[in-house]
Structure formats: C-alpha cells, structure tokens
C-alpha cells in the first residue's frame, strides 16, 4: 500500500459542543481562558455551564496570563496508543496557572531531565488541526 502523503493527526481530539465552544475558539485565537462565577466568584477549569460551588449559570470568561508553575509531571516512555507511541518519551504535567487553577497538559521544548516541580512555564499554542488548538507549556523565557 502506498504511504499517505500527509500524516494524519492520530491523537484524541476533543468533542467541541455548544458548552465548550467559546473556550476552544479562544485557543484557536491563541488565548487561554478560565471561568469565574458572576455570583459567588468561584474559579473553575475545565469550562462548564454552571458553577460547581453555587450552581449559578452566570459565567464570566477570564483571560489568563498564560503563565504558571509545574505542579507535577511524568515523562512517559510507554504508550501503545496511536499518535503517542510515535512521540515517546513525552512529558505530561499538571501546570498550576498564576490564577490558581491546575490544568493537565504537555510540557514541550524541554527534555525530561530539565523539568523540576515549581519551574515557571508559559503557554504555547499548538494548532493540531484546522479546528483544534491545544494549550501546552514550555519553560518560561
């Protein structure tokens, strides 16, 4: 069989729907948002339609600075899943944003042995398909 000309993006993609569309559209513009409840002020990530503290639907979108620190991480050397098995090792991490919320992400532009918990990082936007941009992080410059 002939090799396909372009490599198809094989990793899982999010299901974009009406609830989360503003968040994914912002990422496409290379902007990272969290949500804040207009009634009680509670912050939340990932995006959802109501506040988990007071169940209010009144939501404000807050643009983050895109800066944070590594909360914890792991370098993965084994994953049989398509898309990942070709990119081993990769670094998975929780980044704690300066706004206080933790996000699961990948650390890029660094090697596993360079990563330390507490290390300052900044967001990089990876346009993986025409519809989807992922927020990943690299050591702060």
């Amino acid at each position, binding site marked *: 069989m002939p090799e396909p000309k372009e490599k198809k993006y094989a*990793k899982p993609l999010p299901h974009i729907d009406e609830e989360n569309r503003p968040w994914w559209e912002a990422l496409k513009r290379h902007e990272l948002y969290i949500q804040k409840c207009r009634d009680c002020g509670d912050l939340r990530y990932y995006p959802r339609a109501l506040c988990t503290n007071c169940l209010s639907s009144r939501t404000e979108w807050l643009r983050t600075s895109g800066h944070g620190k590594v909360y*914890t991480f*792991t370098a*993965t050397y*084994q*994953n049989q*899943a398509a898309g990942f098995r070709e990119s081993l090792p990769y670094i998975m991490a929780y980044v704690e944003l300066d706004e206080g919320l933790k996000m*699961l992400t990948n650390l890029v532009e660094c090697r596993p042995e360079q990563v330390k918990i507490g290390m300052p990082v900044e967001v990089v936007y990876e346009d993986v398909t025409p519809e989807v941009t992922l927020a990943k992080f690299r050591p702060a410059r």
Partner: protein
Amino acid sequence: MSLSRKTAVAGVYEHPTRFAPDKSMFQIMAESVRGALDDAGLTIKDVDGLATTGMGMGGMGIISFADYLNLTPNYVDSTAIGGSSFVAHTAHAAAAIAAGLCEVCVVVYGSTAASQRFAIGTGGAGGSGDPPDQYDAPFGVTTVGAYAMIAQRHMHDYGTTPEQLAEIAVTMRLHASMNPVAKYRDRITVEDVLASRVISSPLHLLDCCIISDGGGALVITSAERAKNLKKKPVYILGVGEAVRHAARGQRDYLDIAAAQSGKLAFERAGVAHKDIDMAMIYDSFTITVLTTLENLGFCKRGEGGAFVSGGRLRYDGAFPINTDGGGLSSNHPGMRGIFLVIEAAKQLRGECGPRQVKNCKTALVHGTGGALGTRHSGATLILSNQ
C-alpha cells in the same frame, strides 16, 4: 443505624487461573460463584442477590450474567467505579441484607485481560468522550502516567525515595513466593526494581502491577445465617466509599479518596487503627500503597516512605499487607478489588498457611478504582472474625 456485625462474608473463592485463553469471562465468573457457594456450604438456589460491575460486558451487563447462570435475584448492584467496585459491592450487599432486600448476595468478578492482551496501564488514551476526558485525553494520559505524577509530587514534597517505593514491590514478591497460585513467584530485590526500565517517571516496570486473567467471588449473608454455615463467619464491621477528581482545577492531588472512605469505615466500625492486624491495600502501583496508607491514617502524610521501609509490611512484620502477593505479583486482571476481600477473609479464618499473619482478628480492605492522578474511587471495609 449501625451495620456493624449484622452481616458477614460467608464464602470466598479465588479462581486459580492466571491465563485462560480457553475460557470466557462469564465462565470464569460462574466457576468462581460455584467455588464461593461451595466454600459457604450454600447452593445456587440460595442466591437472591447479585453484584458485579458489568464493565467489560455488553450493554446489558449484569443482566447478561444473570442470564448465563439463570439467576433471578431480588437485588442487583452493578456499581462500576473501577477496581474498588467489588469492595463497594460488599458494602452495598451488607446494607441491602441488613435492610431486608435480600439474604444471600453473591459478588463476582472475572476477566481475561492477559489472554486478550489488553494494555491495561499503558494503552488507550482516547477517553470516553465525557467532559473531563476532553481536557485530559489529548495529552496522552495513561493509567501509569496518572499515578506517576502522584509519585513525583510525593517525592518532591516529602523526599520519598525510589528505594522506599521499591521495597513495597519486593515485599509483595516475597508474599507471592509463598502463594502457590501467584503469577510471579521468584524473589526480587530493591536493585532489581530500580534496574527495571522506567515506564513513566519515576515509576519502573516493577513498580507496576502485572496483567493476568482471573476471577473470584464472595458470598455475603446475615451474621445470623453465617453462624450456621460451613466456614467461620468474617463479620463486616464498617464500610466507606468516596471519589476524588480534578475538583474544578483546585485539587490537592495527595489527598485521595481513602482519606474520606477510611475515616467513615473506622467511625462506623468503632475500631481504632491499632486494632487492625493486617490490611489489603490495592497495589496497582507501589505509590498507590504508600499514599493509601497515609490517607487511611496509618501514618501521617509525608511519612509513608519511612512507614513502608524496614520490613514493616511483610507478613511477619509490624503491619502486614497484601499477603497474597497483591496486584504487583499475584494477579491483576484489571480490577482486583475482589481479591482484597478474599485474602482478608482467608487471613481472618486462619487459612493462609506459610503466609498466615499471627493472631489475625481484624483486617482492613481498601480498594482504589480509576487513577489517583486524574479521577478515582476508594472503598474501605473493616472485617473481623469476632
């Protein structure tokens, strides 16, 4: 209303298979039910309650298994919260029996993960499509990776060492060497664990549970009925369950479900930590054991590394755990909670031969389901032969 000592584990059976390409999941489950009923001295006609997860089955789950064994129970429970499910089923069965919903409940599990070559910890990254998965799956979360992040943070905060984690694996293998049906029985050393390849840093291959086929079953009934059956009753004193997740981005990841479920189980049982003679702690990974012991309150948070060292967890140590060899060495068909209850019951009945814990009167069981580093459940039981 207290559940304490109203119900008992009256029969247990661990299927001896570790590799069964010739058997279906349902056959392993049914053979396990037969074994547990034989152990209790009951027959299939006595069964009026049924519990299993339904995970790995088709859409009709538990009903399909009832069909296979031609059961028409008055009570069914297919709580599916991962590896801890069967511990939770036991708790639910105790409550159901105490409330009069059924009299004899069978809890059953079976799996052919090894013969079907499932990559339980390091495969699949697609997630279910549920909202939380949308924000995890694109980054390649594996089960082992999610646990590894807990280990990394614990090492950072408290100076926990790879050697301390490795001793847990070494102890489980020692226990497996005394269990004739354990999958891996050759003794290992701390150096062997550290020399095994890194799967997801800081966890090595030998920090991870094995993959096997297997199954098991429990018979739960009223304490009164259990007293007149074949084996010595193992009374259910206290139960608890809990979940932990991302908590809207605000979770302290070293706080796990065991903190909540353990506290409930101790309060409900009316016993203290010093009363626990042995424990069965879900050992999907070495870090699971360490952080579970801390969260259950057997040592303070941050002291787990020292607590698991120096042979304390050995069958002949000060705080024996996982005397069957655990998921790290005996068997792990995907969700091993049922084996925790089976081994605890055998210890309380004094049936464990060379690995028997001396004067074992009270045992704690804690199952973990899912992944500590993303979303997980915990279920705790406190059992006693008194």
